[in-house]
């Protein structure tokens, strides 16, 4: 499996995603400059966190015109894996690869802290190594992570198991107090209908080693690798 970390002007979690993919999970990984127009050699494309184009206009809005992001859309259509983290999630929403939109946090403040997530769907390439309902400890760091979708879209997301992660408390309950940004239905991460495109606000790459206080995020990457090794079949056990 070969992974690419797309570097947009203003990306800043590119080094963190690269470190986890290459040093922790052991994947062949390249940085790919956003001007590159052919990413057909990659099985996994990661759009990392940061402030692409300074988040000017709207978070993620300008990045969608980059050739590499348009390549990500092609990869998604071909069933290859696309993961957008934080600003990468915002980019996926702006490109329309995932439905909905992001608003400023309810507090109107950037917040960096550990939160708890519940894994709602373990039948996709990125999460099949987690147990359904598992509660993860994982950091968020954003000012615009307040997910919104209209009622119809939300219903579709829920019906098709596209809500992958929700903010919960330590016991796994999706309470208002456990929601760090005001997201609709405590949504922290969603996937497309096929499950090969995942967007999430929390940072799995920041909690993939014990020295960082948690390695609960590691399985997002190892799940993807196992799925690929298993030739696209969700393995159990």
């Amino acid at each position: 499996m070969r992974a690419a970390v797309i570097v947009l002007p203003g990306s800043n979690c590119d080094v963190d995603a690269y470190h986890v993919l290459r040093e922790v999970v052991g994947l062949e990984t390249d940085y790919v400059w956003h001007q590159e127009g052919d990413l057909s050699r990659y099985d996994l494309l990661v759009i990392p966190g940061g402030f692409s184009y300074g988040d000017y206009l709207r978070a993620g809005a300008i990045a969608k015109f980059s050739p590499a992001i348009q390549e990500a859309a092609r990869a998604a259509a071909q069933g290859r894996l696309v993961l957008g983290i934080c600003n990468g999630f915002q980019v996926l929403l702006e490109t329309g690869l995932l439905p909905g939109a992001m608003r400023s946090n309810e507090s109107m403040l950037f917040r960096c802290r550990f939160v708890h997530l519940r894994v709602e769907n373990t039948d996709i390439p990125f999460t099949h190594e987690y147990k359904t309902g598992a509660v993860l400890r994982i950091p968020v760091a954003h000012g615009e992570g307040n997910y919104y979708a209209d009622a119809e879209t939300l219903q579709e997301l829920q019906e098709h198991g596209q809500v992958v992660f929700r903010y919960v408390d330590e016991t796994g309950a999706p309470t208002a107090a456990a929601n760090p940004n005001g997201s609709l239905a405590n949504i922290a991460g969603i996937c497309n209908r096929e499950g090969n495109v995942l967007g999430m606000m929390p940072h799995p790459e920041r909690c993939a080693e014990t020295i960082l206080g948690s390695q609960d995020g590691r399985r997002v990457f190892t799940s993807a690798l196992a799925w690929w090794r298993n030739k696209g079949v969700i393995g159990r056990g």
Partner: protein
Amino acid sequence: MAERWENVGLTAEEYDRIITILGREPNDLELGLYGLMWSEHCSYKHSKIHLALFPSAGEAVLQGPGENAGVLDIGNGLGLAFRLESHNHPSAIEPYQGAATGIGGIVRDIFTMGARPIALLDSLRFGTLDEPRNRYLCSGVVSGISGYGNCLGLPTVGGEVYFDSCYRGNPLVNVLCLGLVPKDRIVRGQATGVGNPVFIVGARTGRDGIHGASLLASREFDESAEEMRPAVQVGDPFMEKLLIEACLELFETDFVVGMNDLGAAGLTSACSETAGRAGSGMELDVALVPRREEGMNPYEVMLSESQERMLVIVRQGCEDQVRQIFEKWGLEAAQIGRVTDDGLLRVRENGRLVAEVPAASLSDQAPVYDRPRRRPDYLDETSAFDIDQIPVPEEYESWLQRLLQSPNLASKEWIFGQFDYMVRTNTIVYPGGDAAVLRIKGSERGVAVSTDGNARYCYLDPHLGGAIAVAEAARNVVCTGARPAGITNCLNFGSPERPDVLWQFRQVIEGMSEACRALGTPVTGGNVSFYNETSGQAIHPTPVVGMVGLLDDISKRCTAGFKGAGDVVVLLGSNRPELGGSEYLVQRTGQVTGRPPRLDLDLERAVQETCLAGISAGLIRSAHDCAEGGLAVALAECCFLSSTDDLAPPQLPGRTPAVGVQVSLRSEMRPDALLFGESQSRILVTVKEEDVPQLEEIARSNGAPCTVLGMTGGERLMITGGPAGQQLIDLLVTELWQSWQSALEKLLGE
């Protein structure tokens, strides 16, 4: 009518000196260049002779004072570049942009050295939060740091915040940046090689920030300060991020000869300093400088402090490759001149000569002053203060509660939670404890870093206060298991033209130097901010020390919180009846008075060595510096940060403290001094019961007092003590924690 020199802030004698240097009268532009470069902010003319006292030599020092940042050898072929700088005056006028551009400036100082910036810390001071203006300044500064630092992708991993009425109208914003550079690839701010092209890269030049250095930073504040808002620069963190990446990509090549950021005094400073350091000259044409507005004259171009710009001197023949690298990042790179060998800074406009002065005369030949110093009279009164005038309180629990909710001691999570302190995934001890620790990927090593400076102690005894600032910063670093390696500093004072302020300045430097020598931590650089006054009232003398330390094995790092129940709590160091300058005394009397706690540097070293040896031997499970608020507050903090999981980050939201503590303090001294006194050289540690004898042996061999105080466990903070051994404190930890945790948010969060 004002004399010519007065218009640029110089004296008649300084003007005569310029005539002697040039052998003629300067033209208006030339006079403007001198006015700027000989301002206090750029020339350090009032501080230079005093700063020379700092011990700056050391085996590990790769670069000492005089460059854009100091560099320490940290092993594995790496240098650690670090510097601390103030942005006080701009932040007083426009807090968001003032703080944001403060970050931009210090980050440029670091990558100018060829270093990849890896982290930021902020040392902040504001007036008390009961005044709306101070709340506005505090929120604005925090937003500015958040907006700029987060966008750069640099973790803000620590710092400190204090509130005192002396900072009313004149907040302090000091920012520290750290960076890593391969030892053999340190870049210097030197313009060498005759004929080498000089580029300006990054943002375009506009009229913003003209006179920032000379007007804003080199005079005190009065009612007209608001009118200087246009002199505050405006920051663009996205541009800075591109500039960092482009410059670091350029450093991978061998095209670069020298580099300097365009900060205070813009092109004037960057050109004269790079040529001055190298002993060369430089010729440039202002017409070639890309502009963001039309009709700028040479004076405006040379003085502009537009942000996110760098001066780069490259090898002749590499011009096209250099341009290509900046083009990739969407940045402009314009050749504006070349290096010469005649020692002159020659400025042209479309070929026409508009200024010609010796480069080194701007950067290095400003007059140096040894102005009068005098001990201030108030010290007679404050040092005569007698604690026995203050009755012992009836009970202590409400005082502990009150202290824990005071903005100076309450949790700072509302502030640091707005900063991304994890990005780059190197932060392995998070903010909220004694010092932050960053791992160096690809090695077992780590860097610990802390900022510290108690200005109340400096106000009451500047020599002692200066020494304590260094000792406490070192102690903070030691609590993580790191050995202190060196310091940088920022000295924030009132007007140096006042003898009492200059006396304080000198005393602080002497005290800091003494402690640096005793603790083996050289001073690798620093920054001075004078004229921190509002309407004639100077701030407390406020030195801020940025201390870095090294950990050989990050798996042995230590944190402040207790690690579960059943550990023995031990005090390294000893308690003395010292309440002078304490937070408790301020809360009780509303006054900053008394004598600050004593500092015995031999004892300090003994305590620090014991702590380091205990951590390195794997005995010490938690270590926390005993500082403002005294022993009772330190014990409470160890409970607040406690966990049963060694690796858990200490500030998980909604996470309640894991454990309480029960201690007994046998002492004859008055209980409030015992609980809340701020005696120096004390570290609270915990060990397993069976390891107590071994720790005692280490302490004995180092000559450090070592006292078993009690044991962790239960849900309460229980302290007995005093002459009668009575119950002083018995409170539920979670209740104390809730008020400590939410106090700042209640004041600032609306």
